[in-house]
């Protein structure tokens, strides 16, 4: 596990107008890890996720990916560093078919490994294969989430960012999606950084975790440590989450 650091976020501050959303956040993600960022609504989790992609841009601090400073890079250049994202709200292309959505994901890869990667996505999410010619907007929420992750995987990413993959989904589908993430990490060594409100599921899945409160990282540790931590339990696990 003593792998190299892939994503290094140091002292990042992000503002919406004059309102500070992140007060100097430090997060690192190492090669081959699943890192979970948990926290309540409005803690700044999604803001951090979007700051990594440069929209909104960090006003202070640095974000380094695989040794390159990406803090000031344009969003599409950051994506070309092979960071893929399943954004908040999934943002699939509603009028395009499942296949076309996947094809868009492979744009970065110039469709070089297209056929092979499509098969991989369908092995991971067989449900998508049944929906192949259907328009993205007509899929169910869980299928849209699968499509969003599948689309991100088509770019052959070094780092996969997932913003609330469990949002609004039935527990069974959440389990399927978390299983798929674990599978990707184990078999392909994919590094994953995920933001979740479903703290229990996320921490069980994660190698390490961070807890965010009001724009600050207040705690960090391995997934097991955080699950056992009484403060975390009180704040995020015993309030009705499973």
């Amino acid at each position: 596990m003593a792998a190299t650091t892939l994503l290094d976020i140091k002292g990042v501050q992000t503002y919406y107008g004059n309102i500070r959303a992140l007060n100097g956040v430090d997060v690192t993600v190492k090669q081959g890890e699943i890192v979970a960022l948990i926290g309540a609504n409005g803690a700044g989790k999604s803001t951090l996720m979007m700051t990594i992609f440069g929209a909104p841009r960090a006003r202070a601090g640095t974000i380094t990916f695989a040794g390159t400073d990406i803090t000031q890079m344009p969003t599409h250049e950051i994506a070309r560093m092979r960071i893929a994202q399943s954004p908040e709200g999934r943002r699939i292309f509603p009028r395009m078919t499942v296949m076309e959505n996947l094809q868009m994901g492979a744009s970065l890869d110039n469709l070089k490994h297209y056929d092979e990667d499509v098969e991989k996505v369908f092995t991971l999410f067989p449900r998508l294969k049944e929906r192949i010619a259907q328009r993205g907007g007509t899929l169910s929420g869980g299928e849209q989430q699968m499509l969003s992750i599948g689309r991100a995987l088509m770019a052959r990413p070094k780092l996969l960012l997932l913003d609330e993959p469990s949002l609004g989904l039935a527990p069974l589908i959440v389990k399927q999606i978390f299983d798929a993430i674990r599978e990707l990490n184990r078999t392909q060594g994919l590094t994953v950084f995920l933001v979740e409100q479903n703290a229990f599921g996320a921490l069980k899945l994660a190698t390490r975790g961070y807890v965010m409160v009001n724009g600050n990282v207040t705690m960090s540790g391995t997934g097991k440590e955080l699950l056992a931590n009484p403060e975390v339990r009180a704040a995020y696990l015993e309030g009705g989450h499973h």
Partner: protein
Amino acid sequence: MAVTVSPESDIVATPIQRALKEAFYAGAISLGLFVLFIGLKTGQNISNELVVTTRWGLLAAVVIATAVGRFLYVAYGQPFMASQKITNVATGLLPASVASRFFQLPWFIAAVVAAVLLFVLNNSLAGWVGAEPAGYLQFLRALAIIYVLACVIYYFRAFIHANFTKLGVTALVLYPILVVAVLSLNAWSIASGLQGSLKWVDNFGIQILIYVMLAWGLNIVVGLAGLLDLGYVAFYALGAYAYALLATHFGLSFWILLPAAGAMAALWGVLLGFPVLRLRGDYLAIVTLAFGEIIRLVLINWREVTNGSAGISGIPKVSFFGLMSFNVSDPNYIAKVLHIAQSGAYYKIFLYYLILGLCLLTAFVTIRLRRLPVGRAWEALREDEIACRSLGINTTTTKLTAFATGAMFGGFAGSFFAARQGFVSPESFVFLESAIILAIVVLGGMGSLVGIAVAAMVMIGGTEALRELDFLKQIFGPDFTPELYRMLLFGMAMVIVMLWKPRGFVGSREPTAFLKERRAVSGSFTKEGHG
């Protein structure tokens, strides 16, 4: 004896009663609407005084027609349509559709015979029955021909539906030949056939195809990339003036200037694109609208170069790829080279094939681009810009290429327009043109090439066809000019189409990505059909 109204009839009104009531309301509404529009006509007399003429008779006619129409619709139309949806108790089948009852073989044969007879006897008819009944007979002939064509379309509807594109392109390629052949046979002389074909090839064929091309060009910007452009006519104007100025001042040939005009319009597309990159939807629409007006005002006011509102005339004709010319005075005039009779129709037919070629080029490029990364990126951009960026797509270049490609086709169409008219002036490039082109794209169904072509044919061909409705003069008097009503009909057609098909004529879009091949997709559907 007092008439007692049974209480039942108050509760359950028969269709007739309901129809009477609704007819009364419809009449009242139309009276309120039209009392000022139709009832009073204002004008000026020779000493500039206001003259009000009343037209109560016409007003009464319109109100009565509205009321009667509403009555017939509610009393008979609605029950009939409802009965069409009820299956027969005995057989369990829906009643035969109206269309299959309307298009029947005996009637078809009768219509063919009537059309042929009236065609053959056309010239001698006026002598036998007098001029006015002959006019009505011509109208009857038109109806018979329309019925025959509608029958043919109805009988072969499955085949036509399956091969629409191929049939359409074939029909367009054969169109001028058919027009000349039919008119030559009709007048029994090729010269008058060629002369008569001018109107059909130029006013209908070329005019419609110019709009098809413009709408297909705008479709790249609006339909594919989802960037609402209200100033598209600016690129049309740029292409037209580029050809007009360079051809008149430097004597350059059309074949050099066509790509030059396209490139110039594309350059301006990029120049417009840069400042509006961050705008979308309504905001983008306003800026592009302003751009269109700026170009037009520059054309009007920059007199030294553009000759202002007087426009540029004497724009040279297109040559037949430099081999033959269409100027009668030139030594290589086409009729001299080929030893055929002189006629202006050759040039129009040549222009027809030229614009048809340009249209097909536009369609081909659009279809190809949709399957290439840039075309896919346009469509993805229309759907979700943020998602595009996070997939590594450079949205700046994607938008600029959409603007540039759309503008380029506008420029091509513009230089063709200048060559065809021989004259350009800013009046041809007003906002209404942009609006019409956009309306065609929306009516056809955003992104659908076939739908847009059909919409252009209906809209532009329809307004041109109004000029042909001379027989209406026999009903409404010699002052009646149907083409004055074209904008009214254009608006009505838009409202009707949007009610009937809110996504345009062709609302579906053809997917561009498949798993290995199309068959594989449907195969996997049937095999793994479980939920």
